[in-house]
């Protein structure tokens, strides 16, 4: 039963990784860049939800929606101001800019909210939990909401990219920017939309993360950001189902290692598994083999 309980916790953490990984993977697939500031957008989202509940007296749903709105605007603005001017630059220049943007967000948060950890309102996601097996396995409301949110988001994104005109346009840009433009698709607008979606999801992930682990500080987004990036690579960067699979596996491996091997070594084990997977399959679990153009 302890094992089952760990598995549920892993599933829950993995769902959060998966939602964050989606932002990395979509931006990578469409804008062809690693947005290292993505983890810090999570942190901003959590702070906004925190302020909504603590200072502005907003009801829980409004807290989440406000966080999503702020993060969407933030993500689109970051892309517009910092990344778009570098569209023709080397990927190294873009990477360094993204790392700089990450520190900028952390330092701004430090200025605004201070270094002292805030305790995140745990009742923000106020769904009652339930117990199974005569009380032996407890599933909390946060876990339930997290897993459900992940499933809904995944289904919605799959529908969006496979059925809608805008979603298909996104796939075109991801495959061949020039050809997409020839169809009449604006590459800039498509990239903005990608950042908007990824950042709104980051806000949701921020609320879920801090509801499960309720300490909030300016560096809160860093480690989950890196883990989720790992999850995206693990699943095959650029692939939406890959982000899901990678996130879930990473969360489960992490929690099980923590429970059965060693708390200290859990992160090392996670990254060791990643390295093994990449050695066997360099494109990640569900990654597409990149076809060289003739």
């Amino acid at each position, binding site marked *: 039963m302890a094992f089952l309980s760990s598995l549920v916790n892993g599933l829950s953490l993995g769902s959060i990784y998966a939602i964050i990984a989606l932002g990395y993977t979509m931006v990578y697939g469409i804008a062809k860049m690693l947005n290292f500031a993505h983890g810090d957008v999570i942190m901003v989202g959590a702070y906004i939800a925190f302020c909504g509940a603590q200072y502005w007296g907003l009801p829980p749903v409004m807290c989440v929606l406000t966080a999503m709105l702020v993060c969407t605007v933030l993500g689109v603005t970051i892309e517009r101001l910092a990344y778009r001017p570098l569209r023709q630059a080397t990927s190294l220049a873009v990477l360094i800019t993204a790392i700089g943007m990450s520190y900028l967000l952390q330092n701004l948060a430090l200025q605004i909210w201070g270094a002292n950890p805030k305790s995140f309102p745990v009742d923000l996601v106020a769904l009652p939990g339930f117990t199974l097996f005569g009380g032996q396995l407890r599933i909390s409301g946060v876990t339930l909401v997290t897993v459900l949110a992940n499933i809904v988001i995944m289904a919605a994104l799959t529908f969006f990219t496979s059925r809608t005109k805008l979603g298909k*346009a996104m796939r*075109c840009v991801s*495959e061949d920017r020039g*050809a997409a*433009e*020839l*169809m*009449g*698709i604006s590459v800039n607008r498509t990239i903005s939309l990608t950042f908007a979606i990824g950042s709104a999801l980051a806000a949701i992930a921020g609320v879920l993360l801090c509801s499960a682990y309720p300490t909030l500080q300016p560096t809160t987004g860093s480690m989950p950001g890196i883990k989720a990036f790992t999850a995206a690579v693990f699943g095959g960067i650029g692939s939406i189902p890959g982000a899901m699979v990678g996130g879930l596996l990473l969360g489960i491996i992490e929690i099980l290692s923590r429970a059965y091997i060693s708390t200290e070594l859990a992160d090392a084990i996670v990254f060791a598994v990643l390295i093994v997977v990449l050695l066997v399959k360099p494109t990640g679990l569900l990654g597409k083999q990149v076809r060289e153009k003739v």
Partner: protein
Amino acid sequence: MSEMNQQELLLKVNDIHVYYGAIHAIKGVSFEVRKNEIVALIGANGAGKSTTLNTVAGLLKPRSGTITFKGENVTAVPASKMVFRGLALCPEGRRIFQQMTVRENLEMGAYSRPNAEIEQAMENVFGRFPRLKEREKQVAGTLSGGEQQMLAMGRALMARPELLMLDEPSMGLAPILVEQIFDIIRELHESGATILLVEQNAQMALSVADRAYVLETGSIGMSGPAKQLLNDDAVRRAYLGH
């Protein structure tokens, strides 16, 4: 020729210069296309044919010179807007969306059109390319080279362009398929399409075109009625190999 000149001027390219960084790829090219014409742009590999088409399509910006389409100056109009104005480019190397199905590729070709028109346009394309209809649900990357070329042309036609630009549609195809592609170009012409055709296969291009321009390392050499160029000794020696 005089009959042709009475047709409305669709595209006028005037003295464009295009650079790739420091490389001066197009050095003052001028030409025009009138309604219902097939105009061929021929020249050796690296002469600047693709650069010229990409510039007209808006993928590249000329450093100087003007491009006029349907009487409007479109020199600075980006590619994503040109297709809304009625110009479609079927690019070199086909560049279909490999991971999308045939149907999805065609839908994306009609991105600039109202949704209500898509089915009709799709029927038209399927009528012209029955093979695509058979492969409608197939992922485009798994099509044969000839089928991919048909898909690329079908995708460009989905935009119902007033000017269709084809960049080396016969590239890498077996002779029988080349014949097929040129038959389709002839059919399109008969149904009233205006086509700007770039080809290394000068023989085929000159045999379907009304007029032609010869591009030589970034500038226009000869130009004139296609039949005349086909019989010109210099052209025959340089581009037709006899």
